[in-house]
């Protein structure tokens, strides 16, 4: 990779600081074919710099000292340098941007200061002398026909712009890229740059340019980071207002602070573009009501008047960021104040992948890491969660590595990190559940039920293109019904484990509360969260107790029927609230790579289209009492009867249940399956447990295996929990 293997990089000598010299051993110089003072381009991890090659004074090989006089902006660490000889012609012209200490004094000596230096396009030259001009940014070299060259006495130096050093230091913050918010980023940039760059055009069109923008999104999606990034990208000054900083104790102090911040922004705007960011604007500008105090209302009024007072010629843009748009004062959300509202939703699959690529860019990844797979597994994660995940994975790798050695981060580290990092939107939610993951094989029998469940849950994830081709939409809801103890809950668990969906489960106990309207609100909130983390599964166990039937006159005005109506609208309402909007996966980030990568991206796109919904899985053993509106297609459209196990199924269940019990060779599971008519899955599990306990009781604690007679004894004690009438009833409702 680099041609400086085994060479140690040392800091440059004090005498060499601003000489553009790169000291190396004579052997390395002759190996690279360099003469004294020949220009080289040194590429390091974060950038590059142009130097002239000189031998070290002590002629020692194996060391490298680089003077970064002419380097890419923001270069500070020199790791893995790669030296490339550079062809540098004498330049005829160079256009530069100069950074001066005091913009009022301009002097004409740039040319003499640059003379004799090798410059490269886009590099920043630190002049290092005590003059007005401190830094020079090289914009184009020979009108763009060359990349680098030597400035001589005959070179024409054009100064394109003069800016203050303060302005440049702002630009120097690390230039990381943001993943997944390209479209929002572009529209934000456009909005900030248009009024600042083309004021004349806007004036001729008679437009007053928009000056306010409200960013809305759940916590952790990167609202603040986005604004910082955009400001830095277009070289705008950023003035930040935090709610608590503004609030003062004396009456009128808060308003004064706010005015001061606006004045500061106005002063910055004199010099160049400026962005005023009001973070967590809901704390600064809450809804004015009777109950809120006078000081608060005064602060809101002050903010409103300040926003109105900004003239259109003043070049600054106000951006507010919030995660509770409903708490804002409505007066703030009108054109003229915040003209535009941009909603940043929870990232979708493709966005997650691009976020992961950008957070893992500087991380050494081992080749087995599949970021696509990680993106699939992390539904409901926002940007902050994903960066926490990658950090955790890197920490795992560090823990694993031997002391001092560095190990690339591999897939297993990511899997381990996934266990620690949970999506932040689920931290405070109601229905998020942790459950023991079980596989389909741990449920005996019920093959066709499993198939139906897989069809509605797993297939949209695995074979999206087939479903799209056939025009099959994903089912909205699945109702599992059948006698108790026949593995309905286990089936749902297995389905949730096999697909990487977010899994919410809510029971009647969590739902009902003594306050009027609270239950309905909880349910609506659950669905809002489930939509934010889509694709997700909402599991409503014992749904008959939660939502009665409206046909039943006794229940017609009870809480149950209210909950039912909420559930019906959530299942099949007109649309979702505007705040929950998420990006349409229309614009896809360009992926480098071959055809394989293309098909992969296509598949992910399809998945995104198919899986943006919430799947409701309900379980009940009394399907007959459910409201008929709930059972129509479009709501709970898949009704799956989970039957009591037949002989084969019982045998399968017994095999699963006795997998960890040491059986005597005389045990015949076929016989047991024959004898356990009307036993449910739970009964069979109990039978195996009972038999094992009997063996322990009768043969002492040293017993090594369970013999058949204990099963027979247990069978005599236990009776089946299902009754023929119950089956009849279920069978009846199955037909209906």
């Amino acid at each position: 990779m680099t041609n400086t293997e085994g060479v140690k990089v040392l800091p440059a000598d004090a005498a060499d600081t601003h000489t553009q010299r790169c000291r190396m051993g004579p052997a390395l110089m002759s190996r690279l074919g360099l003469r004294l003072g020949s220009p080289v381009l040194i590429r390091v991890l974060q950038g590059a710099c142009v130097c002239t090659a000189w031998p070290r004074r002590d002629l020692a090989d194996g060391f490298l000292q680089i003077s970064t006089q002419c380097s890419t902006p923001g270069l500070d660490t020199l790791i893995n340098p790669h030296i490339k000889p550079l062809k540098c012609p004498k330049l005829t012209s160079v256009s530069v941007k100069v950074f001066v200490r005091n913009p009022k004094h301009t002097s004409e000596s740039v040319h003499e200061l640059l003379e004799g230096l090798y410059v490269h396009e886009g590099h920043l030259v630190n002049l290092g002398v005590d003059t007005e001009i401190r830094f020079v940014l090289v914009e184009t070299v020979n009108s763009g026909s060359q990349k680098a060259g030597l400035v001589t006495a005959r070179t024409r130096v054009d100064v394109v712009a003069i800016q203050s050093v303060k302005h440049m230091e702002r630009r120097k913050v690390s230039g990381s890229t943001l993943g997944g918010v390209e479209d929002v980023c572009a529209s934000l940039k456009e909005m900030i740059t248009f009024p600042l760059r083309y004021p004349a055009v806007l004036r001729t069109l008679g437009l007053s340019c928009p000056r306010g923008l409200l960013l809305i999104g759940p916590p952790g999606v990167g609202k603040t980071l986005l604004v910082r990034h955009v400001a830095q990208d277009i070289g705008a000054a950023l003035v930040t207002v935090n709610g608590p900083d503004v609030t003062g104790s004396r009456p009128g102090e808060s308003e004064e602070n706010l005015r001061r911040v606006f004045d500061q922004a106005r002063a910055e705007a004199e010099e160049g573009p400026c962005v005023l960011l009001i973070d967590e604007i809901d704390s600064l500008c809450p809804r004015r009501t009777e109950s809120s105090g006078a000081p608060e209302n005064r602060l809101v009024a002050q903010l409103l008047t300040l926003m109105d007072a900004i003239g259109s010629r003043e070049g600054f843009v106000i951006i507010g960021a919030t995660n509770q748009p409903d708490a804002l004062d409505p007066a703030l959300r009108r054109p003229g104040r915040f003209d535009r509202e941009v909603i940043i939703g929870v990232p979708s699959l493709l966005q997650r992948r691009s976020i992961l690529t950008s957070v893992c860019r500087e991380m050494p990844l081992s080749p087995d890491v599949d970021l696509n797979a990680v993106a699939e597994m992390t539904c409901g994660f926002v940007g902050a969660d994903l960066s926490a995940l990658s950090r955790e994975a890197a920490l795992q790798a560090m823990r694993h590595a031997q002391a001092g050695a560095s190990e690339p981060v591999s897939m297993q580290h990511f899997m381990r990190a996934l266990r620690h990092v949970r999506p932040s939107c689920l931290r405070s939610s109601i229905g998020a559940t942790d459950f023991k993951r079980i596989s389909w094989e741990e449920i005996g029998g019920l093959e066709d039920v499993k198939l139906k469940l897989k069809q509605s849950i797993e297939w949209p994830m695995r074979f999206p293109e087939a479903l799209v081709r056939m025009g099959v939409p994903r089912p909205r809801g699945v109702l599992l019904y059948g006698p108790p103890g026949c593995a309905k809950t286990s089936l749902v668990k297995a389905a949730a484990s096999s697909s990487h969906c977010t899994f919410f489960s809510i029971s009647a106990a969590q739902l009902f509360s003594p306050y009027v309207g609270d239950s309905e609100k909880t349910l609506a909130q659950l669905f809002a969260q489930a939509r934010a983390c889509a694709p997700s599964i909402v599991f409503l166990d014992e749904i008959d107790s939660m939502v009665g039937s409206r046909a039943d006159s006794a229940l017609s005005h009870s809480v149950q029927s209210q909950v039912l109506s909420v559930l019906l609208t959530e299942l099949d309402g007109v649309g979702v609230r505007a705040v929950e909007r998420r990006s349409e996966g229309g614009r896809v980030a360009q992926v480098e790579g071959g055809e394989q990568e293309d098909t992969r991206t296509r598949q992910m796109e399809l998945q995104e289209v198919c899986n943006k919904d919430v799947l409701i899985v309900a379980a009940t053993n009394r399907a007959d009492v459910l409201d008929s509106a709930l059972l129509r297609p479009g709501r709970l459209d898949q009704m799956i009867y989970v039957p009591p196990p037949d002989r084969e199924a019982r045998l399968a269940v017994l095999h699963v249940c006795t997998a960890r019990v040491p059986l005597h060779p005389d045990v015949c599971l076929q016989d047991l399956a024959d004898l356990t008519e009307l036993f449910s899955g739970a009964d069979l599990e109990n039978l195996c447990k009972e038999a094992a306990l009997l063996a322990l009781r009768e043969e002492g604690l040293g017993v090594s295996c369970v013999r058949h007679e204990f099963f027979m004894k247990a069978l005599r004690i236990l009776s089946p929990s299902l009754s023929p009438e119950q089956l009849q009833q279920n069978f009846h409702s199955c037909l209906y």
Partner: protein
Amino acid sequence: MSSSVVSSLHQELKQSFEVLRANRAVWERALADCEPLLSAIGNIAVQLQALRHVQLANTPLHSFPGLHERLHYKLSLAVDSALGKLAENMDALQRARDAIGRQVSAVFQFYERNTHTLDIAACVSRSAVCPSVSDMLEWLQDSERHYRLQLVQRRTLLQTLTPSDLVLMETAPGRWASLHTSAGEERVTDALCQVSFFMETE
């Protein structure tokens, strides 16, 4: 063949150091001439400042007509003449710098023309009396850069002097003195000392 190139390069280098030594003397003389001129400018600035504040009508001198204007004119003339002399000295400094720069670029060009016969090993070999080619080229480059930057800085300082800003004029002598970097001068002196044996050899 290589040895002939090396010896002619040595000749060039010797000539360069001769030029450097001669022009260094010129430079220092010119710089020494500047010193009193700048302190004169500083003094005049103080006088101008005083003139601006004094109320001549309250002094016994009020009977002289147009005294204020006359004094101001005289002082401005003094500034102009001092600046004119400084400009002459700056020209001398410029000439010294140009001579050094020309010579240094000539020796670099000579080296570049002959790089195919001079490998790195030949360039870095040094002996008790003769420093290596690379060392000498480096010293020459350093000296050239030192004089060039000094000239730019000093000229910029003079360009900022305007009669309207008396504070800048008052502080000019101090700032002029602070531009003198002993480190840069020492490096030129060091270089000249280190080549003294080399210069004497034939």
